């Protein structure tokens, strides 16, 4: 997000693709540093609703990556002609189009997966990640970078979904992708498959990341005391 604002004032003569940080950074940003789920806490509904098995999490990831990349690309293509007043309407129209495409594509690939995802395919329309990337990135950047950003954010979302899905499936059903892991004597920890398990698993990951960030901050503070104090001040 911040990068998008930074190269806004770049000289008009140079193409936007050349400005700003290298392309790889656009991609990696979404993957880890600005992970849409764990850092920005966006798109929480599918993160918890669709992750009671790794297979569903994978299917959802593919669907979201497709919509995110396509809508970013198309938004970026029409950004110069779209007046500011109606940009949100145009974004929603474009996103809804690609969600409809995904809806039919998933049905064409596998009906059981379609049934497992239920209403959550249609609900990709209101997944905040996609609208946020259209507004914050694709509307201000070139097609190539927007596609990269779509892939980065999409993979970041997938990582989060897989983190959630694998924990919930391994503990809740004793399987991974449907293959039993622990033998017949394992008594599944069903609570992880229930809705409350979704909340607990998500909270668990947020705790882990917060702990990890706090430890890193402490180390930074230990090595560079004056910089550490500056960083800690706003908290």
């Amino acid at each position, binding site marked *: 997000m911040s990068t998008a604002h930074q190269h806004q004032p770049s000289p008009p003569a140079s193409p936007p693709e050349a400005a700003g940080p290298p392309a790889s950074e656009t991609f990696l940003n979404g993957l880890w540093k600005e992970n849409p789920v764990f850092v920005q*806490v*966006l798109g*929480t*509904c*599918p993160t*918890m*609703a669709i992750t009671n098995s790794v297979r569903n999490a994978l299917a959802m990831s593919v669907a979201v990556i497709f919509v995110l990349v396509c809508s970013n690309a198309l938004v970026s293509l029409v950004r110069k002609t779209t007046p500011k007043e109606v940009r*949100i*309407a145009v974004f*929603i*129209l474009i996103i*809804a*189009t690609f*969600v*409809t495409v995904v*809806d*039919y594509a998933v049905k064409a690939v596998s009906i059981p997966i379609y049934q497992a995802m*239920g*209403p959550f395919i*249609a*609900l990709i*329309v*209101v*997944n*905040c990640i996609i*609208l946020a990337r259209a507004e914050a990135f694709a509307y201000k950047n070139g097609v190539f970078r927007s596609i990269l950003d779509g892939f980065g954010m999409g993979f970041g979302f997938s990582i989060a979904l897989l983190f959630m899905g694998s924990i919930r499936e391994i503990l809740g059903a004793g399987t991974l992708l449907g293959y039993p892991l622990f033998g017949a004597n394992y008594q599944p920890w069903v*609570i992880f498959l*229930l*809705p*409350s*398990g*979704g*909340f*607990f698993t*998500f*909270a668990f990951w*947020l*705790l882990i990341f*917060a*702990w990890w960030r*706090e430890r890193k901050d402490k180390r930074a503070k230990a090595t560079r005391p004056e910089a550490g104090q500056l960083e800690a001040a706003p908290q």
Partner: protein
Amino acid sequence: MNNVSSAFIFIDALLIHNFVLSVFLGICPFIGVSNRFETASRMGIAVIFVMIVSSSLAYGINLVLLHFNAEYLRIIAYIVVIAAMVQLVEMFIKKTSPALFRALGIYLPLITTNCAVLGVAMLQTSRGYNFVQSFFFTLGSGLGFTLALIIMSGIRSKINLNDVPSIARGTAIVLLIAGVLSLAFMGFTGLGG
């Protein structure tokens, strides 16, 4: 699928399958707007209102789409209706009650991307409810959403006075409480008979 009583649909959407705590719809506002009782209840009322209007409209639109065999336009039609409804509601409230408009503030436009609103429209269509059933389903879902928000705002106002470990501050503690609430709401299962 069409013979469930409206009363049961209402109770089911309100308690047994609470939209926030068991179907995972509307989590974003649940986390974002549940820190104070006033904002939580106002958001709830606005959502109930938009839900009822847009779900009724979606019911009519679905009939039209089915008549023309154009189900592939359903997603687009629903989201456009919801976005338009939110705009209309915003203008309407601004005209009739500026006080309420100021109170709702930023939460009104945010409702467009509240997945509970689209979710209610989609679910009543896929379950094949008739108009009365879908009305009670919508009402129950909206009230259930508000209920979850209000409960959470009450708990959070207590939590704010406590010493929460630094790493759990913010979203994580809300999610942990939501998990416990979700477990508690499973107790309503018996109401289904």
